């Protein structure tokens, strides 16, 4: 009976865990932004923080960086994914990309960014492989590639990670868009493959993947770890500058940081509105284009270019990991040698013990958070099944809310708020902060397979006198083993990759693989970065491998369940 009472409140609890910290954090940002920070002896309201913010000489460029990075990264990744899907879905190269998806997705942003930097910097691997033979360089050219003023490398670093994410989302949406038949008909009418897909399937797919696209836009505008590694510093992007202000010894600088955080929130909202308006314009133009009846002449080159772009994204992450591996074993490696003078275990001996300690902390946090998220998610979904407490379409947006509000807008506020009430920073608050980001992903990952489960199985089990809990534990969950483990792996990967939440809410006391790796960025020790980057990737990747392996072993003699 107890459980019956408990289950219906789980959806409320879940929303609270997701939105509570966001709301509290925004409140904690709002007050200091208007000059109210009693902990520092400052009583508001005042507009002083905004005045200071607008006096900062770097502000116009920092804002511009945030906007340009977000819009460019989102539109380019979206274009690549749409065109690759349009031109190639169902073909061999596409299946190859699909197979690479999970590993690519689980590589943490920081590791991918380091890998990219080690590839394309003037002294990077690409330049080493081509030098001096093809380029004639016997020393690296003095070119501003990494940390370039316009943030293009940072944008590229985001694109290589957003393409796999959007592709995964698109694949999920394709099933409901009736893509194959539409394309077949349009081709029968003489449309090219890409043109036909864009004219018939794209509008339906886009309507479904709109929320994740907005997430990508908000994330790209306010990312911190990738910006620290690849972004410019004279001045940095707005979010990086906010984090700098928040850690200034002068507490009064937090007011400026809070004002900056509100500005960042405003920028993201503005960009989302701009994007939405763009959708209307695009839809108008698109309708005109559809109506024009043009069959598409450039289909082939466009499809090839898109495939090349997609392949470059995948390969830069994969080769980035390769170059991280080489650095982690490298002896002296001068330019332009393609490989180090020698390979050594020395780097692993030096940094291995440190990574193991950080791995322990990372695993403890990630496993706890992912399990809590999984329990809440299954609870919500089961409550929905038993009591019909469904999320309306509007409520689905609530799931995306914590991902749409820039981290730099509410995490600093959450930190300040915790400080004001004297709460201790540490592992448990970090876990709660991680939960905000982990829950939506776990929920989105598990919801569809959970709802798609054939409820007649439940009816049969109930007819055999199984209780509702018995149905859940003994029928539904075992049958859904693979999606449940996948959702858990997604949760683990999201937690492993969290940088800002760990740094700010942990007060520097909680050292995970990600915070340690990003902290190494300023030291520039490529061997240490190699070791930490690989460990970080491993921590995110191994759960995915287990999620594939365990059901295969557990159901080795249950053929019907193997793909469930």
């Amino acid at each position: 009976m107890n459980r019956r009472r408990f289950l219906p409140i789980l959806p409320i609890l879940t929303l609270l865990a997701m939105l509570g910290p966001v709301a509290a954090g925004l409140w904690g940002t709002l007050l200091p932004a208007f000059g109210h920070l009693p902990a520092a002896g400052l009583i508001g309201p005042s507009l002083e923080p905004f005045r200071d913010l607008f006096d900062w000489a770097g502000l116009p460029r920092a804002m511009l960086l945030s906007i340009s990075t977000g819009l460019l990264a989102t539109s380019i990744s979206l274009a690549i994914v749409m065109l690759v899907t349009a031109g190639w879905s169902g073909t061999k190269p596409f299946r190859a990309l699909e197979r690479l998806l999970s590993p690519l997705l689980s590589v943490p942003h920081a590791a991918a960014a380091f890998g990219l930097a080690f590839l394309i910097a003037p002294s990077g691997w690409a330049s080493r492989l081509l030098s001096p033979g093809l380029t004639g360089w016997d020393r690296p050219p003095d070119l501003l590639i990494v940390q370039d003023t316009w943030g293009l490398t940072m944008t590229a670093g985001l694109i290589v990670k957003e393409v796999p994410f959007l592709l995964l989302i698109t694949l999920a949406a394709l099933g409901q868009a009736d893509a194959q038949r539409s394309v077949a008909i349009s081709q029968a009418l003489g449309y090219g493959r890409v043109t036909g897909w864009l004219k018939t399937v794209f509008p339906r797919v886009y309507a479904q993947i709109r929320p994740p696209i907005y997430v990508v836009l908000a994330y790209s505008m306010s990312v911190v770890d990738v910006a620290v590694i690849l972004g410019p510093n004279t001045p940095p992007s707005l979010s990086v500058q906010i984090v700098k202000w928040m850690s200034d010894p002068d507490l009064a600088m937090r007011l400026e940081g809070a004002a900056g955080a509100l500005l960042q929130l405003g920028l993201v909202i503005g960009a989302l509105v701009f994007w939405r308006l763009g959708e209307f314009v695009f839809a108008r133009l698109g309708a005109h284009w559809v109506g024009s009846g043009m069959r598409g002449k450039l289909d082939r080159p466009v499809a090839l270019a898109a495939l090349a772009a997609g392949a470059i994204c995948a390969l830069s992450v994969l080769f980035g990991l390769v170059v991280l591996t080489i650095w982690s074993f490298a002896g002296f490696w001068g330019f332009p040698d393609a490989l180090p003078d020698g390979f050594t275990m020395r780097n692993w001996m030096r940094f291995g013990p440190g990574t193991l300690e950080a791995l322990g902390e990372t695993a403890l946090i990630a496993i706890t958070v992912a399990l809590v998220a999984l329990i809440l998610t299954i609870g919500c979904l089961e409550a929905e099944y038993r009591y019909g407490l469904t999320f309306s379409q509007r409520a689905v947006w609530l799931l995306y809310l914590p991902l749409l509000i820039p981290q730099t807008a509410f995490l600093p506020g959450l930190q300040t708020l915790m400080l004001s009430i004297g709460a201790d920073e540490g592992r448990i608050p970090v876990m709660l902060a991680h939960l905000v980001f982990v829950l939506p992903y776990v929920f989105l990952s598990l919801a569809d397979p959970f709802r798609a489960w054939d409820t007649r199985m439940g009816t049969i089990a109930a007819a055999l006198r199984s209780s509702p809990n018995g149905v859940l534990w003994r029928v539904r969950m075992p049958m859904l083993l693979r999606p449940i483990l996948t959702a858990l792996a997604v949760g683990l990967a999201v937690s492993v990759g969290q940088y800002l939440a760990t740094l700010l809410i942990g007060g520097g006391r909680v050292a995970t693989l990600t915070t340690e790796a990003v902290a190494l960025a300023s030291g520039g020790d490529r061997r240490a970065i190699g070791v930490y980057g690989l460990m970080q990737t491993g921590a995110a990747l191994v759960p995915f491998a287990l999620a594939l392996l365990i059901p295969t072993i557990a159901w080795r003699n249950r053929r019907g369940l193997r793909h469930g």
Partner: protein
Amino acid sequence: MKHLAVLAALLAPVPALADIDPANWEAVTAEAEGQTVFWNAWGGSTTTNDFIAWVGERVMEDYGVTLEHVKLTDTADAVTRVLSEKQAGEDDDGAVDMIWINGANFAAMKEADLLFGPYAEQLPNWAVVDVEGKTVQTDFTVPTDGFESPWAMAQVVFVHDTADMPDGLGSMQELLEWTAANPGRFSYPQPPDFLGTTFLKQVLVDILPDPSVLADPATDENYDEITAPLWSYLDELTPNLWREGKAYPPTGTAMFPLIADGELDLSISFSPGAASTAIANNELPPSVRTFVLDKGTIGNASFVAIPYNSGSKAGAMVVANFLMSPEAQVRAQNPEILGYGTVLNMDALSEEDRAAFEALDLGIATLSPAELGTVQDEPHPSWATRIADDWMTRYGVSE
């Protein structure tokens, strides 16, 4: 008698319960056992991190003190933390037990009464510290008054790859001329990084006819006039920097890979032994050497300080004392491990300890104490703060 002791304890004034007496070393070590010390120290250098981990093992072995290294990207973070804890009323068990500190951060904490002490000169190993020859009782001209204890000496050295740049330079003026002839081959860490700020101070100290004006706090009246030559120097230097000054390395250690790859021929370091250590770790080519300027270079000491609200003051003092021990100092000076200058007075050491220092091979790229020449005093911290702020406005948001 027993009752009397209890009564005395009950009647003792409250402050006596609060803080332990640093001079009573037996009581300190007894209380330290089992304590955990959160040492907030810059974590950007892997060699330093390794050294701190070793210190942790040793104090656990000898004193049962657990040492946790909180790796900072900026020491100011720890200062903020203590300050905000004070404002939030957390006076007994703050998050920070010990800070690797000097300069402006120390001046700020001492000024705001955020430090525990005086304790440094009561520690047993203070007896072997070189009070005469090394600047261990002032920190950027601010008297330490026992509120921080030294553990390493640093001095600016220029690091050059002799394969591309065979000879050193004698002055900042020569450096300017050299960069004009070799554009893109020199850079310095982006201020407010402490090494980057130190480079700016080094420029000023070297080009001013009389740098002694920098010993007093900067004032609104004299600041502009005294720093004017620095800005015209930088205006001339910046276009010839690496990446034309549009990007800067974030820290000193980040310049090592740039030298190793041949992007830079010249950089600076605040640790005379760091280049040799980096050669040993394959981070720099063996052709790298170091030099100092004819008029000498800026030097200072690294200290540790204990926040007033640390809950593990005894443990922190044990660590601070261990850092000044001959064992730790020899290890820190070993270029294969850290390559930091010692704070100890060789004459005060036992025969055996002195022999250990003499047996050290300082490394191929490390200058001998004689070669390091004159150590120039750090300017008053107010100069560094204002210069770094101005730099950020002039060059930090340029393009």
